[in-house]
């Protein structure tokens, strides 16, 4: 039960003024600009865009500055901001095969057309703190090959699946638009389109832990990283004023194609199955975790047992959203004075009753 409480206004205003001072930190240290955050804390920006479910690097950088670097708080700010904007419509489905690739690796086929392209990765670094970064200075320019990469690299699985041993993902475009969680609540059983939207917005830490749990045996599905790619993808849209599709620009995207344990049935020959993950910007850990959980949530439709947390759609999808989760956890900080008073009265009553009963029993024994 909540009761309006008056009287905190001045304390709140002063608290916020102090917060602004703390946000700025030592005034002798130069202030961060939005551009600095956007350019130099890019992976933080990318995560805020992904889980904030809004692609706009400048807004995400602003949110991070306002939130003092707190990612979930910044994600909350971005989600709140989007509610102030009108929706112009939906894009055409992205053609991730047409990506201008910066990184593309496959852990299942060594000789993929176009090769294994490492791109700007943390992989193979030694994870030793680099104290050179504590001093200022520009890095040496990255080497450039004489022959650039092909303009597009076709999807590894689509190219190397000639035998049809891996499940194919076919477009089955019907007239109905896919469900949209920004406009309708989660419903169960949740279709894959609804699950993928939920997971794409879902908390990276939560999905990482769930994905890891499947690897450790809670809903094992034997994954391989079929392909991970990161780069720029064009977004196309049909403006009502024009009636034909145009490109709005490019967004950076990370995509993970997971190839998983095979299944077969009376109708289907044995074949590898798949899980899919995607994130705005460069977010491989998120895309891989999402792909693992997407595959785990397909357990029922693939006729597998569903006895592990990562396979439980209601458990996963109801708890993946960190804006909702932090809201319900943190609301415990709000005044519950009346609630607690009533519970105090109940406990006092129980104690009184117990004491009276003990006294009565003692009296009975003494007689």
């Amino acid at each position, binding site marked *: 039960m909540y009761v309006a409480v008056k009287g905190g206004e001045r304390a709140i205003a002063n608290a916020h003024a102090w917060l602004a001072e703390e946000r700025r930190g030592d005034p002798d240290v130069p202030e961060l600009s939005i551009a600095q955050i956007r350019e130099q804390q890019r992976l933080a920006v990318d995560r805020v865009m992904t889980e904030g*479910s*809004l*692609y*706009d690097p*400048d*807004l995400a950088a602003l949110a991070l500055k306002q939130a003092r670097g707190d990612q979930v708080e910044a994600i909350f700010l971005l989600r709140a901001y989007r509610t102030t*904007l009108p*929706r*112009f*419509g*939906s*894009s055409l489905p*992205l053609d991730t*095969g047409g990506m*201008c690739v*910066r*990184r593309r690796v496959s852990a299942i086929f*060594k000789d993929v057309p176009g*090769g*294994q*392209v*490492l*791109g700007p990765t943390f992989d193979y670094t030694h994870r030793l703190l680099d104290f050179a970064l504590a001093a200022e200075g520009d890095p040496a320019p*990255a*080497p*450039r*090959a004489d*022959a*650039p*990469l*092909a*303009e597009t690299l076709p*999807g590894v699985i689509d190219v190397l699946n000639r035998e049809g041993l891996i499940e*194919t*993902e*076919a477009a*089955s*475009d019907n007239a109905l638009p*896919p469900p*949209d*969680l*920004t406009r309708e609540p989660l419903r169960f059983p949740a279709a*894959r*389109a609804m699950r*993928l939207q939920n997971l*794409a917005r879902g908390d990276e830490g939560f999905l990482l832990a769930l994905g890891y749990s499947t690897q450790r045996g809670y809903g094992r599905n034997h994954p391989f990283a079929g392909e991970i790619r990161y*780069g720029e993808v064009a*977004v196309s849209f049909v*403006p009502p*004023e024009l009636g*034909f599709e*145009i490109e*709005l*620009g*490019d*967004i950076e995207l990370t*995509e993970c*194609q997971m190839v998983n344990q095979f299944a077969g049935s009376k109708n289907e020959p044995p074949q590898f199955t798949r899980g*899919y993950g995607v994130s*705005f910007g460069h977010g491989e850990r998120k895309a891989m975790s999402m792909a693992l959980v997407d595959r785990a949530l397909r357990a029922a439709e693939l006729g597998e047992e569903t006895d592990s947390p990562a396979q439980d759609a209601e458990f996963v999808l109801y708890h993946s959203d960190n804006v909702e989760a932090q809201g319900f956890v943190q609301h415990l900080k709000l005044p519950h004075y009346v609630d607690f008073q009533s519970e105090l009265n109940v406990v006092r009553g129980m104690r009184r009753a117990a004491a009276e009963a003990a006294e009565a029993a003692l009296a009975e024994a003494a007689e």
Partner: protein
Amino acid sequence: MATQTDTARRQRHLAVLARAGRGLLEDAFALVQPAPRYEVVKPAETGLVMVRGRAGGTGGQFNMGEMTVTRCVVRSEQGVIGVGYIAGRDRRKAELVAVFDALLQDPSRSPQLEREVIAPAEQRRRERQAAIRARAAATRVDFFTVMRGE
């Protein structure tokens, strides 16, 4: 009635303009002779477009997340409608794109604009992408097999 080629040309122009920097468009606009006059039909407005993806990259559609988009509609002196739709929140840039869209439909202006605005913007984009692909190609792994024993 617009022909297929007109539409294809306009699509190409709009794709190039949407990716051009605001500075490039602003500079180009200042140089257009005779100085164009236009009226704003729909003032620049920022909103959202839901980005759709496909399961597995090629399967059923799903909603991936939104992006900010800014749009503007103008009418040139000749009464030609220009439409600008760009990723992001730059209202002035959306207006400039709409203006150039209108001007590029004017046969007396389009060859010059094609030469002085579209071609350089397209060239910049090509160079930027080539630089990305050259750096990416430098990180391609050359596998070799180490012979054992013998």
